[in-house]
């Protein structure tokens, strides 16, 4: 009779199973990216509300913050934010479609299309934010 020993046949995990990149294909990358951008956007939303709340402390505090956010590093972050938002949005549409059983056979093509749109939107945003 076989005795089951170790619960999972893998080495001690540094990352959770869903984040492990070894041997994974395109669809999983999209899923991982969706999760990461989703988490990132939630964190950003919280920070955004915290920052908005400085309005309660009057115009000087607000203007000071806006000056800070005009620095290059924060502009770059803004571009990243747009990219993340665009990916989560367009890929989210893809997941909603495919996840309802529509266009399932074309899920890879839809990912490529989403990626192209993300690239375009990010490019336009980069030009307008940095320029």
């Amino acid at each position: 009779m076989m005795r089951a020993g170790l619960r999972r046949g893998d080495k001690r995990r540094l990352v959770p199973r869903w984040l492990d990149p070894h041997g994974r294909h395109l669809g999983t990358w999209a899923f991982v990216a969706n999760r990461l951008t989703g988490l990132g956007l939630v964190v950003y939303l919280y920070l955004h509300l915290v920052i908005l709340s400085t309005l309660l402390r009057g115009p000087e505090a607000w203007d000071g913050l806006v000056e800070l956010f005009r620095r290059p590093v924060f502009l770059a972050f803004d571009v990243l934010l747009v990219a993340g938002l665009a990916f989560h949005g367009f890929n989210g549409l893809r997941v909603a479609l495919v996840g309802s059983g529509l266009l399932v056979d074309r899920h890879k093509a839809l990912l490529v299309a989403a990626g192209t749109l993300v690239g375009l939107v990010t490019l336009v945003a980069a030009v307008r934010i940095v320029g």
Partner: protein
Amino acid sequence: MDAPHVIVVGGGGTGGALAHDLVLRGLAVTLLERGELTSGTTGRHHGLLHSGARYAVNDPESAVECIAENRILRRIAPGSFEENGGLFVALTDEDMDYLPRFLAGCAACGIPTRELTAAEALAVEPGLNPALKAAVWVPDATMDAMRLPLRFFATAQRNGAQLRPFTEVTGLLTTGRAVTGVTLRDHLTGAEAELAADLAVNATGPWCECLAAMAGVTVPVQPSPGVLLALVGRLCDLVVNRLHMAGDGDIVVPQRRLSIVGTSAWTVTDPDDLEVPHEHVLAMYREGAKLVPAVASAAERAAWSAARPLIGAIGGAGGGGGRQLSRTFKCFDHAVTDGVEGFVTITGGKATTLRAMAEATADLVCAKLGVEAPCRTREVVLAPHTAYYTGRAA
């Protein structure tokens, strides 16, 4: 009074069917298999449920066994066979000359046949060589080489048999010349142990000489491997055989989305470490394409060898490497043949005759142990193969 304890060594189809039969007759059974169940020869065959037609002319004893078991297995394991049938296809004038003998042989063995014209054959099996001359439909069928025997294991387990895969017999326990148990090693844990039994059955197929040697006896079994070729694509829906005396590459068996072309034959002394001679693989392509033209351009999924256990003298039966030996099975009571009590060997046979081999062996085992119980395996419907995995305590 405790039921007698029988150790079955060998977890192939024969061992599984035997465990099932013995447990139904009220005996305690422990089955030991050194690897995964059916990992010896049983799991490697092309999946043909024989109608026996291939043996109708030259080996009628085998043919009669096959057609009887063909019917029984469909009854006790419903839903486990693609029941499309098989065709014996005549391509040459020589094949056509063989046709009357073939039909007569099948009739004599009780194997139903239906003669088809080339057009009729192509209508039911469009994958055939369009240049065929005639065909004969026979009640061949296709099984899953592992999952069909697994139903026997599942049922035996459900009824109380102890199944121990990855457990290898390292020696036999004896008192005088009688076998009283085995020494074993559990490969998963590395633990070694002894297990006592009232009787041990050698059901190790082409390896039965190795186990027999541990008891100081010999069994006239010739391991005879053959090459099989799995091609990508379901190139036919019926089993396609060449209508001639047995030869290399004369069968194409569909298996899900693969097509298996077989086989060849040579003899070895060691059934482990089988070669896959490249000329044999090429022969499979060549001969298989004569039956089903799409074989020629199909991609290879795998090429492998499997050793049949043929009953016959070692080193005897000259050239032809094993094709002349009968494909029937035989039970050896070593108390009678060698004066060794408590030890029985069952060998020979085909995947299709696993239940019959088990019945003959169980009859012998029960006679030796003084157990009076009739065989019920012709009637008992088998559990689904999934029960083997879900029915085990962790």
